[in-house]
């Protein structure tokens, strides 16, 4: 496990070409793409970038978990005093969507899906499965486990655009709900200072939410950077100390 081999398998494109940007920075979807095939990784990365996404492409389920900070093996090693510096760069931007191949050596896309959905911190992240095999049983199993969608390979631009569209919509709705709540809190505070009676919940003009999800879960899925991270793993703590 060479130290200098650390980032060879992963590339984060944090900058989108100037004229690709049609949305503001806060609305760009950050996708974690997982595929063991080099050819497919290159194609999916390009498909996502051309759809105005930030992309981090990794070559295995294990690397994906490491990036998310979910890899138990590494957490175990770090609590045993293993050098964390090697791993701290691997955790990066907040992930808005995971798109993964199904058939991979080691950990399959299905197993990755399960691990993500089992995690309290990351289960809200939509996971899309890609597979060259159009097997109903496989598709059903993935959807039952909580996959957002299932794409049959080879992946086309229309597939990616469709997925990014509804991910962006969900994120925006999450932000709207968050913004609306903040507004209500702000309005309430002002009213209290002015000595008015309690404000009944006046719905903000921009909100047209039709979902019935609980407030706490939608806060978690919103992109607001100020929301406190519920992830308090040893890796996160170690990351902060090593950057001093």
């Amino acid at each position, binding site marked *: 496990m060479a130290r200098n081999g650390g980032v060879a398998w992963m590339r984060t494109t944090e900058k989108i*070409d100037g*004229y690709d940007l049609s949305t503001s920075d806060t609305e760009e979807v950050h996708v974690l793409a997982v595929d063991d095939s*080099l*050819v497919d990784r*290159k194609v999916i990365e*390009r*498909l996502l970038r051309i759809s105005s996404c930030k992309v981090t492409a990794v070559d295995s389920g294990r690397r994906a978990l490491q990036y998310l900070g979910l890899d138990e093996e590494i957490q175990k090693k770090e609590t045993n005093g293993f050098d964390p510096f090697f791993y701290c760069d691997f955790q990066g931007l907040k992930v808005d969507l995971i798109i993964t191949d199904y*058939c991979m050596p080691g950990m399959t896309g299905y197993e990755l899906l399960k691990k993500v959905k089992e995690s309290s911190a990351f289960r809200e992240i939509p996971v899309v499965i890609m597979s060259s095999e159009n097997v109903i049983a496989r598709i059903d199993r993935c959807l039952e486990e909580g996959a957002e969608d299932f794409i049959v390979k*080879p992946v086309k631009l229309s597939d990616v655009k469709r997925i990014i569209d509804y991910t962006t919509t969900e994120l925006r709705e999450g932000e709207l709900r968050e913004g609306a709540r903040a507004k209500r809190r702000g309005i309430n505070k002002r009213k209290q200072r002015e000595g008015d009676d309690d404000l009944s919940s006046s719905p903000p003009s921009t909100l047209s939410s039709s979902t019935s999800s609980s407030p706490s879960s939608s806060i978690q899925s919103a992109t607001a950077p100020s929301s406190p991270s519920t992830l308090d793993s040893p890796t996160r703590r170690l990351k902060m100390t090593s950057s001093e």
Partner: protein
Amino acid sequence: MELVQIQRSLVDYTKSLFMEGFLDAQFLQLQQLQDDSNPDFVFEVVSLFFEDSEKLLNELIIALDQPNVDFKKIDSHVHQLKGSSSSIGAQRVKNACIAFRNYCDVQNIEGCLTCLQQVKQECYLVKNKFETLFRLEQQIMASGGSVPTIELGF
């Protein structure tokens, strides 16, 4: 040769590759992903494919040469090759891989060996086709022209 003639040659040549089944619609998807910010995208992906396929074919030759053939391993390699050929639109390679997997399923060594030859042949053929394609594109670029895009529905 005039620029217009080279451009026409490229269009005709590309169309023939579709007609003869060397390429399918996925190749057009790849072309859509190429633009001024990524002018060599197709070339890069296709090159990656041939690097990848060469490694896989070598593995297959070795695997089929073993006293106890590991069909699972062979199937895994062919599955990979099928996947990447499908991703670049190399239809005949993909189809040859499908046939290869069928022989793996029934553990027929002779069938597998024949299929291996076929897959190798298809890779070789489509590689030559791509080389001609890229050469025509380069000639067009060198003459200051732009590469014409192929529309579906011919």
